[in-house]
Each structure stands twice: as structure tokens, then as C-alpha cells.
């Protein structure tokens, strides 16, 4: 199968993820969408690895998954901490870092 199709799916998933990050205000959903973007990247990596016939791309994909797992752990921890402190679960409300 042509590499183009894999990349098209990857780009589609990436765009869905990016659109979700940009439009949703719930941090849990934003995390989900981030995962979508990362996996879109993974799909592209694996597609290229298959095209070249070597395993380096797959190794990269594994590393990205590990990093994504860590990130989800920290992200969910943060969300729980926010919830525990009874702060609003809304990224637009959490903007104390403005200049």
C-alpha cells in the first residue's frame, strides 16, 4: 500500500487532535487530544519505518509511547491536584501566568 495513505490518516488524526486541544476547555479532554496527536506522529513514524524496511522508526514510536505515558501520568496528577484544591476544571480560568 502506498505510504501516502498512512500519512493521510496520520495527518487527519493529528488535525483532529490539534483541533481538540485548541477548542476544548476541559483539561482531561485536552490530554486525550494530545494523545491523539502523539499517536498520529507514531503512525507516521511506523509508516516510514515500514517504507524503509528498518526498525529505527518503530523504536522511536516505542519511546514516544513511554514519554506519552509519563506525560499522561503527570497531567492527570495535575488535574487531580487542581480538583482537590477546588479550583475550576477549565484551562481558560487557570490563567494566573498572564503577563
Amino acid at each position: 500500500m502506498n505510504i501516502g495513505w498512512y500519512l493521510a490518516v496520520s495527518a487527519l488524526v493529528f488535525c483532529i487532535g490539534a483541533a481538540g486541544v485548541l477548542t476544548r476547555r476541559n483539561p482531561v479532554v485536552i490530554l486525550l487530544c494530545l494523545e491523539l496527536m502523539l499517536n498520529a506522529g507514531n503512525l507516521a513514524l511506523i509508516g516510514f519505518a515500514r517504507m524503509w524496511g528498518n526498525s529505527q522508526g518503530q523504536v522511536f514510536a516505542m519511546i514516544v509511547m513511554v514519554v506519552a505515558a509519563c506525560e499522561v501520568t503527570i497531567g492527570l496528577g495535575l488535574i487531580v491536584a487542581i480538583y482537590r484544591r477546588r479550583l475550576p476544571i477549565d484551562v481558560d480560568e487557570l490563567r494566573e501566568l498572564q503577563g
Partner: protein
Amino acid sequence: MTATTFGWLVLLFPLAGTVVLGLGWRSLPGRSAGWIGTAAIAASFACAVVCLAALQSHHPGARQLTSTLWDYAVTVGVDARLSILVDPLAVMMILVVSGISALIHLYSVSYLWSDRGYARFFSYLNFFVFSMLLLVLAGNFLVLIIGWAFVGAASYLLISFWYRRTTATRAGIKAFVINVVGDVGLVLGTYFILKHTGTLDFVKTFNAVPHVFARDDGDLVAGCVLLLVGAFAKSAQIPLHTWLPDAMEGPTPVSALIHAATMVTAGVYLIARLHPLFERAPAAADVGAVIGCLTLVVAATIALAQTDVKRVIAYSTMSQIGYMIMGVSVGAYAAGLFHLMTHAFFKALLFMAAGSLIGAMAGEQSLNRMGGFRRAMPFTYAAFVVGGLALSGVPPFSGFFSKDEILLVTGERGGWHWILYVAGYAGALLTAVYTFRLIFRAFHGEPVKEATELEHGHLAHADHPFNPATGEEEDTDVGFPGPEHHIAERDPPMRLAMGVLAVGALVAGLVQIPKVDFVIDHFLHPSFADSALYEVRTKNGLLAVGLIVGTALGLAGVAIAYRIWVTRPGTAAAIQARLTFVHRLLVNKWYFDELLDLLFVRPGAWMGRFAQQTFERVVVNEALVGGTTGLVRAGSAAVRAAQSGFVRYYAGVLVIGIAAVSLYFLLQS
């Protein structure tokens, strides 16, 4: 030991005195500060005498000895060394300076005894003497400029010695500013010379001048005129003279030493020292002669109308220095320096006597309040008469010989110099009139209250100390004059100093009597060996005319003064009433202060105000400083707006940015 070693020793003693007194002022009991200061200068004078003897043992052709202590900077085109030049001219100057200074220190030991700044005064005075000796011993332009500036600084310190008196501090600042104008002239003039000769050393410069400069070369004339600006500022010549009368705010010994006998003659010394330059640039020398002549007449007329006893003497100093400047500018070097020497004697004497008079009046200086002190203070009266006769040029007193010799040489130059000659004799008549006006008004006539009390042994004391210039009340603490007054009649050191000077004023002229002896002429000859104008005079020429006219004018002046102020006391008021305009002109000193104020001070102040209120406010404050802060503020506001804190906004910017970069590369490839 050679002559130059003693030259260095002459400098060492006053410097050591300055340091010792300046550092040890707290721990010097009683009059010891005064005696240390006096001893330092006396030692300096002794070294100067030995230096003279050592120099005279050299062959006349080899009496220009240079000695270098160390090099400051010696590279191509500049040779800055700490060097002195010991030659007859320098030795004559150090003898006069250290000798007169020693006597004035002696006088001050008593005069300032009650003052709280006693040790400080002697430290300053020693510093002044050191600076002046450095100036006259300088072996190159650099050391000359250092000495020149030190002398100005010492003068400032001593004029403002009573530093809580506003009139004194203002006078000090005025003197300093005008002197700095002169310093600038001197430095720029030196540059004009250095640029062409490539050396700072005097002897090398003099040797180079005939080869480097054509006669009346433009740069040389410019340089010499700038040097003259320095000389005029230091020697109080028109139009840079207005500081000298104001400098009389200082203590009287300071007026005697700095503003009569030594510092103000530095300009005369400068012209004499640099005579090879001025002879090569006769145009510049003519400027000096004309200004000197102008000053001598103008100052003499002003002295006729002033009522402050010290200011009258100050104007007579200006007038006499006018003679000297005129003399050395027309080539009468020996005569000019001879007059410098005799003038130092009789002018220091007159100031000391004036100090005695002021002491007897409890600080009052106005002639209008004085009178009849003749019987109360016979010693002071005698000193005044001796000094006055010497100043008026009555034979056989010293001023007679020196003044007439200057005018004689001026006349012999011929041409337009005859105008100077006649003006000089007119000035001589005025000199005699104003000098004896002073003496007759202070010592003759009805004794004032202070004089009658003094005859009974009571020295007048002011109930409240006050400033004689403004009448403001003062106390007697540090920064103001002390409570006790000393007059020469009572104190042996003052009497001794005045006695020695009186003898000097009487006999100093005898060293150079026309057609009899030529001590000064012969002594100074090695310094002026290369001069075309210098000659040991034996001609008859104008001599007899000059001597007779000089004597007649001096005596006539005394007679006029006697007639106006003694035999017919109302005459002065009648003349004043008839010549109101002239009198007002003279009382206001020919409006020179106002003229300088109009020409320089006000435009300067206006420019300062413009710079402060308009330029600084609009250009500096608003455009430069305000513009920069505005720019930074606007920039930071724009950047700050981007930091909204919306996570999704950041993510959006990121996505758009990456998309833009990706698109760019896609389109490029």
C-alpha cells in the same frame, strides 16, 4: 654643591613648611606655626643667596644652568621633564620672592595671631611661596604652567581665607575664574610654540626660535598674544584686572605678598623670560606695551576716587605693573625687573602700613572715617611716607630710579612709543597725587575718635565684629577675622618687617643709578645675551630730561595733593561737584565690572539658563530620555499583551507558527 642644588633647596623648604603646617596644625602650640612658616621661607631665602653666590662664580657666558630631577614623559615631539633653569633672571626673582615673603611671614606672625585659622594661614602662605618659586625657577613650559596654576590656586585659598565672609568667597571665586582664563591662554600659547619648535625646554626653545619662526610669523604672534592673555590675567592688566581690587578681601599680609609684591608680577616675569619669542613677534610685544600703558593710566585715575584704603593701593599696584609690562614689552627688561624689585619693597611696605592703620580702626577700611593718625602712629606714618615717596618716584627713593629708566628706554625706541612715554609721565603725576591723597586723608587733619584714643593708649575695638565692605555682623570664630587687632606700633615682629622694607624702599634704587652703577644691567645680562634690545646703557640722550621731569612731576603731585587735602580741605568736594560725571566714572572704576558683566557674565548666564531650561528640558529630558523610556515602555506593553495566560491561545500560536514554517519550507522545496 652647585647653584642648581641650591635652586632645588629653595623649592624644598616652603614645600616642607606647607606639609608640616598642613598636617600638624592641631598639635602646634602658640605662635609656633607662624615661626615654622617664617623659618621655612627664611631658609629658602638663605639658599637663594647661596645660589646667587654659586651662580656668580660661573663665567658670564655659562650662567644658564638647567637641572632635571626626573622625566615625566619624553617621547618624540614632547620632552616633559621636572627641570629648573637657574640663571640671573630666575635668581633675581627667587631673591625678591623669598626675601619679601620672609618679611611678610614675620609680619603675619603677629598680625593674624588671634585668628582661629593661624596654622592654616601659614600653610597656605608657604604653599603660595612654593608655587611662586616653582613658577620663576621653571626650566620648561610644563613646570611653568604647573607653578602658574598652583599660584592661582594659592591666591584663591588666601583671598577666601575668611571663608564665612560671603564677600571674601565671592572675590576668591572671581579671582580664580579670571586666573583660569589666563591659564587657558598660557596653555594654548604654549601649544602654538611647541607645535613648531617640538620642545618644551626654555633654552632649546630660545635656540630654535630664530630658525623655526620668521619675523612676525602668524603662529608665533598668535602664541605670544595668548601668552600675554595669561600674563594680563595674572598681572591684573586691562581688561582682566577686575579681580585684583576685589582680592583685597583677603587678610592684609596676603594683599601685601600676593596681590602686590609677588604673584601679580608673574606676568612681567613671563614676558621677560620669553623675550626671544616676543622679540621675534614685535606685533605681540606692541600689544603688551599698549595694554600696559593703558592700564597704568586707567588704574591711576581710578585710584584717585576710591575711598577704601586697600583698594587705592591695589589700583596703584595695577598701575605700577602696567609700567613693568610696558617696560618689558618695549625691551626695557632690566628696567622692568628693577622696577619689579623696588615695587616689591615699597608696595609690601605700604600694605603693611595699611594693615596697621586698619588694625587701629578696628577693621574699618574707609578713608572717609579716618584722619589725624599722624601723632597716634608715628612709625606707621613714617612707613607710609617712605613707601609713598618711593611710589611717587621722588629722588632718592627707589621708585624714582626704576620708573624713570623704564620710561627712558620707552622714549628711546622712538616713533609711536613717544605716546607711551608721555602717558607714563602723566601716570607718574597721578601716582603722586593719589598716594599722598591717601596719606593726607588718613594721617593729617582732625584726629578721629580712634586716633585720639590711641594717643592715650587705647586701641579701638568694634563692639560687634562686622564686615567692613557690607556692614554685616560677624563673630570671631574660625572663618572670620579673629578678635584682636595688632598694629605695627606695638609688636616687634611687625615693626622689624616694616623697618627692613622701609630701608629697602629707601636704598634699593641705589643699585642702579644712571651713569653711576649698573648692577642690575650687568647682573641680568647673561639671561638676555641673545636680545637685540638689551644693552647696558651709558648714553646721555633723554636721561637728564627724564630725571628732571620725573622729579618735578613727583614733587608736583605731592604739592597738588597737599593743596587739595591739607591746606584747603573743601577743594576735593568742590572738584567733585564740578566734575560729577568724571567722579562717577572713577568711583565706578570706569564701569569695567559692568562691561565685563554685560559682555561675558550675562551672555554666559543666559546660555546657561537656555541650556538648563530649554535645551535640557526639551532635547535631553523629553526627546532623549523620554524617547528612550517611551520606546521601551511601548515595546514591553506589546510583548506583555501576548502573555495572556490562555493555554489554548498559546497552543494556537504554536500550531499556526509551525504550520507557517512548514508551509514556507514546502513552498521553497
